[in-house]
């Protein structure tokens, strides 16, 4: 199981702050495609992915038990 944390407009679009998907392993790129198809999330191209609180690239592999975060362009400061 992979836990996916949602923030900002993604959280509002889906009406929840996390998703759980039953998968053993998936690349970041594949996960983004899957999320686009399943939840019709917009603007996902500009969304970064963090695995266990570290930024990841499309080729990185997410494993069951990992905590994934979808990080829209940040606007702190």
């Amino acid at each position, binding site marked *: 199981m992979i836990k996916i944390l949602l923030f900002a407009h993604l959280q509002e679009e889906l009406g929840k702050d996390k998703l759980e998907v039953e998968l053993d392993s998936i690349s970041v790129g594949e996960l983004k495609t899957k999320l686009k198809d399943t939840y019709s999330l917009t603007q996902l191209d*500009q969304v970064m992915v963090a695995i266990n609180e570290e930024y990841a690239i499309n080729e990185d592999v997410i494993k069951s038990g990992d905590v994934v975060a979808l990080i829209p362009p940040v606007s702190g400061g």
Partner: protein
Amino acid sequence: MEDKLYEIIEEPIQLHKLVEKVQRREAGAITTFIGTVREWTKGKKTVYLEYQAYKPMAEKMLAKIGEEIQSKWPNTQVAITHRVGRLDISDVAVFIAVSSPHRKAAYEANEYAIERIKEIVPIWKKEHWEDGDMWIGDQLEKVAYPSGKPNVKGMNEHD
């Protein structure tokens, strides 16, 4: 170390406490940056702001910025606090303090910190106007990250 140098908090930020975190006998200069909620942005009147953070990762990224600074400007000390939740006009959203033996490094390192916060720290701002609201992201102001991810290796250019 009793105080956390890098913090995401929900309460008002205590300015003098943050300065105390970086005060040292070898420091001759402390610079601070205080980011406050501005009433007018690009002709629109802000009523209030809402900040959200991915707190554990945000604190980790703030600490990473501190490490970057200490490697670029030796013998500096850094403390950063970002507030989240609802903030009204003039409230302090972010507070950065840098101490250094000499002032030049303290200014440069401080400016570097705020630039990097706007690049890599997972914090989001929602503008509330009189006629609506919107989560703000760099997509509204800048191009998408060319490399497909934020420059997590350390920034080379200031804007």
